[in-house]
Each structure stands twice: as structure tokens, then as C-alpha cells.
């Protein structure tokens, strides 16, 4: 029995997709780290927008435009409150974490010179490696890697040694998408600041499980994708401290981001609009706000407590399968179990369990350096959300056992 104050069966009714069948079996959705499912409350917000007040924002004087603008800016304030951000103009709407990171990486081009150093953790998603490599190519800065140990934890002594007055930026995910490790970002941020470096934390994988207090963390940049926390795809946020956002040049030129345009010179709009060129994903932004409302109505403490118990139960049950190895056994981890069975390719397991209606991810999870570190082609990754149940864990274990028996 898993102890929780949540009524999981009632919560599951909020998610229409959880009622469907896959290959004739009830869907068991365990690919939440890739994208979470969408509750009716968020679907309703999307439908309501298009049915009642679809209009372009910030420009129109007509009623629909005013309503859409109000709803979009209200969503920005919801994000501000949720992450305890000082000013709403420090919340930049983006298409998601990848764009948020690229915005910062592109902007830093003018701040870096040859020989400067950028530190990135060994357990990054490709979207948090490639933009920095490109930045290094543009500026001559050097990318250095904070190593990790076999448990999938960052080696903090090495991190402290890597920091120097040459370090200008430190990038790290809050939670690793491939391993589930919760990184000690408080320590990372504090030490980087002492060395005079800025810090960007990729919160994509953490945001559905941990409510980050960005002012207390004192982080310079933090990124989130709405679709990993019950919101729609194609929208996310970049948090940046006001002082940084003022210094950073605009990312893209276009409408919305200008104050005045003549053919001789353009002056840019104030924050946050300086970084929001063109018509934004208005409906997505509003639905992002609705997703935060939904998750907060359940409560992040209760979510974290339940998910921890679920992951602990799943870990015990999976480890009972002979030959099964879990990658990522950090002391602090959340909601992700990456595993392989000796002698079996993860792709084969994924294919068989899909036939049983179970959705897991297989492959390198966009984190090839981690797979190289463990010398494996990939893993099977089961990732959990608050709407998953103990019964679903049992089905996963049953499915993996069946796959193993077929494949070996």
C-alpha cells in the first residue's frame, strides 16, 4: 500500500487520455519525463480561448484583444508567483526550454572572449550541451565538464576545483532527464557566484516535481517547458534576473519587441517584450498558467511525497527481476528509473511492452554522453507522474518480465 493524502482515482479522471486503450490494453503511461499528460482543466482553457477570446495581444484596443492580453499577462503573473520571482517582467515566454537556453547562449556571445570558461555538467540533455558548444565556437571560450560518478551524482569536489576567475558561466540541470538525479543546485549556484560566474539551471525535468523558489536560490537563469508539467507543447519560460535580461541583447527581431522603428535605428521595447518578438503562443501561455493552477490545486508537497513512494516501490519491484540493472542510483532522485536487462537491447523491451499498452522511452534520452559513460547503447526509462498508480507499476514489472522471457 502506498500512503498518500491524494485521491489518485479522482485525479486520473481529470486526464481523458488515461481512459484510452493501446493495442487492446488499458494505457499505462510511463513516459512522463518526455511529456506529461494534459488534464481536462487545461484542455478547457485551450478550448475556451479559441471559442471565446482568440485575438492578438498587446496591440488591439478591441475587447477580445484586451481580454486575451489580460489572460496572457495573468498567466505570466501565475508563473511569477509559482516560482517566487521578484518581477513579472523577469518571466520571458519562450517556445520551451531549448529556446530559453538558446536565447541565453546567443546573448552571451558578446560577453565572452577567448580563454573564458563555461562549465557544464556531465549529465546534460543535448539541448543543454549543443548551444554552449556553438557559443564556444563563436567566442573561443572553452567548455569544461563537471564529472559524475557511477551512481549518477556530480562529483562536487571536482566542480569546486574547476571553478576559477576564468569561469563565466555554469550550466546544469536541476534534475537529470536520463537518470532522475536531483543535483545540488544550491551549492552549485553559491560556489559559481563566489567565482564571479553566472548560472543557468535547466528546470525542465524538475518543474513537475519540485517547486523551485528562484529568489531564494538566487539563480541567474532558470528554464521550464510547460508540456512537462501538464501544460501544452510549444511554450515554456525563461527566468532571468532583471540585471541580466537588461544586459542581454534581443534574441530575435520582429514585432512586439520594438519601441520605435525607423530605417536608421530601432529602439527596443522594455522587458519582457524585448525578448518576445512576433505574435507569441498566446493560447499556450494561458494554458501554461492553467496547468500551474491545476498542479498547485493538488499541491507539490503531496505530489512529491506520493511520487517518491511510487518510485521507491517501482525500484524495489524492478530490482527483483534477475539481471535488471538500474542506472542512476543517486541518494537524491526523482520520478525516473532508467534500466537495462543483461543481454537484452532496450529497444526490444520497449517494443514488447508497447504491445502490452505500456509506454516507456527507450534509447539514449538525448543524453548520449551519459550512455557513453556507462558504455551502453541506451536504457529503458520509466518515468512517473502523480497520476500513475501502484497497479501500473505492477503491470510494468509484469511486462518487463514477459519481455525478458521472450527475448532471452
Amino acid at each position, binding site marked *: 500500500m502506498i500512503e498518500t493524502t491524494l485521491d489518485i482515482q479522482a485525479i486520473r479522471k481529470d486526464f481523458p487520455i488515461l481512459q484510452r486503450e493501446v*493495442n487492446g490494453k488499458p494505457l499505462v503511461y510511463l513516459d512522463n519525463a518526455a511529456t506529461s499528460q494534459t488534464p481536462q482543466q487545461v484542455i478547457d482553457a485551450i478550448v475556451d480561448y479559441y471559442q471565446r477570446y482568440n485575438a492578438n495581444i498587446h496591440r488591439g484596443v478591441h475587447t477580445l484583444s484586451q481580454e486575451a492580453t489580460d489572460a496572457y499577462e495573468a498567466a505570466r503573473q501565475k508563473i511569477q508567483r509559482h516560482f517566487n520571482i521578484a518581477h513579472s517582467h523577469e518571466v520571458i515566454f519562450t517556445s520551451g526550454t531549448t529556446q530559453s537556453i538558446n536565447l541565453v547562449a546567443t546573448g552571451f556571445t558578446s560577453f565572452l572572449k577567448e580563454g573564458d570558461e563555461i562549465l557544464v555538467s556531465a549529465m546534460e540533455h543535448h539541448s543543454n550541451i549543443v548551444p554552449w558548444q556553438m557559443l564556444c565556437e563563436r567566442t573561443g571560450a572553452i567548455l569544461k565538464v563537471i564529472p559524475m560518478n557511477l551512481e549518477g551524482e556530480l562529483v562536487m569536489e571536482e566542480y569546486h576545483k574547476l571553478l576559477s576567475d576564468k569561469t563565466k558561466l555554469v550550466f546544469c540541470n536541476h534534475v537529470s532527464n536520463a537518470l532522475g538525479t536531483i543535483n545540488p543546485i544550491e551549492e552549485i549556484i553559491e560556489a559559481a557566484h563566489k567565482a564571479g560566474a553566472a548560472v543557468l539551471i535547466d528546470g525542465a525535468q524538475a518543474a513537475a516535481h519540485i517547486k523551485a523558489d528562484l529568489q531564494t536560490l538566487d539563480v541567474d537563469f532558470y528554464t521550464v517547458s510547460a508540456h512537462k508539467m501538464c501544460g501544452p507543447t510549444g511554450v515554456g519560460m525563461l527566468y532571468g534576473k532583471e540585471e541580466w535580461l537588461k544586459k542581454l541583447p534581443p534574441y530575435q527581431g520582429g514585432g512586439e519587441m520594438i519601441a520605435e522603428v525607423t530605417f536608421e535605428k530601432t529602439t527596443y521595447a522594455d522587458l519582457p517584450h524585448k525578448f518576445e518578438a512576433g505574435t507569441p503562443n498566446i493560447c499556450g501561455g494561458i494554458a501554461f498558467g492553467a496547468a500551474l493552477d491545476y498542479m498547485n490545486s493538488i499541491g507539490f508537497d503531496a505530489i512529491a511525497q506520493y511520487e517518491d513512494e511510487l518510485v521507491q516501490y517501482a525500484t524495489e519491484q524492478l530490482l527483483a527481476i534477475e539481471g535488471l540493472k538500474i542506472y542512476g542510483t543517486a541518494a537524491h532522485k526523482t520520478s525516473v528509473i532508467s534500466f537495462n536487462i543483461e543481454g*537484452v*537491447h532496450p*529497444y*526490444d523491451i520497449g*517494443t*514488447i511492452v508497447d*504491445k502490452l499498452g505500456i509506454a516507456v522511452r*527507450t*534509447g539514449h534520452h538525448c543524453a548520449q554522453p551519459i550512455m557513453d559513460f556507462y558504455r551502453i*547503447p*541506451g536504457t529503458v526509462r520509466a518515468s512517473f507522474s502523480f497520476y500513475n498508480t501502484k497497479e501500473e507499476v505492477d503491470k510494468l514489472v509484469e511486462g518487463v518480465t514477459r519481455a525478458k522471457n*521472450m*527475448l532471452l
Partner: protein
Amino acid sequence: MTIKEIQEEIIDEFSMFDDWMQRYEYMIELGKSLPLIEEQYKTDDNLIKGCQSKVWVHAELDGDKLVFTADSDAIITKGIIAILVRAFSNQKPQDIIDADVEFIDEIGLKEHLSPTRANGLVSMIKQLKLYAVAYQTQLK
């Protein structure tokens, strides 16, 4: 046997199975019987891109016929490539070029034909046909 005849034979074999489990179990068996590529040909050049698992294919002429050997690190993928090798190996390049692949659909593996499918069945077929085109040119 012609490619068409072999394909019909494969369809016959698969028609004996009632459910997916049996089909996959048979595919796994087929995978184990795949004529394996020699280690020296397991190079990056022979690796088919677009597969989540690794697939190597080697082709060489035996008289006027093209012979395929292959391997994969995933057993289901190996089963799929074994079916393709059985249908296309030991055939004239022109016949391989002209052959259709609808039998994949008929043996209940249609889902693997989607171009976005991570196993890269489409890439595998394309690669076999590309070899046929290359050797056809050489034969001329």
C-alpha cells in the same frame, strides 16, 4: 524462388499465428537464424542510419546475384532484417530494385513501416535497394 514467391511463403508462415506474441516470438527466432555479417564488415560505413538499434548490412555479388549479410544489436530488429534478407538475398539486383514490400503489411508488421518508427525498417529497405542499384550499375 522469385522474390514474390519467397514473400508469399513468409506470409503463409505468419498467417499461422493468431496474436502478436506468437508473431514476435517467431520474429525473434528468425533473428537468431540471420546470416551474420562478417566482423570485418561491421563498420560505420555499413551502419544504417535512422535506427535506434544498430544495424549493419553488407552486400556482395555472387555471379549475377546479390547476397546480403547483416546483424543488429537488438533481436527484434534482427528479426525484421532477417525477413528482408530472406526475401531479397540471392536475387538479381534488377529484381530487388523492382520488388515491392507490401508483404510487410500482410504479415502484421505494418506499424514498423512508418517512416518515423525508430527501428528504421524503411531505412533498411532503402539501403538494400541502394545496394541493388549500385551493383546493377556495376553489372552493366
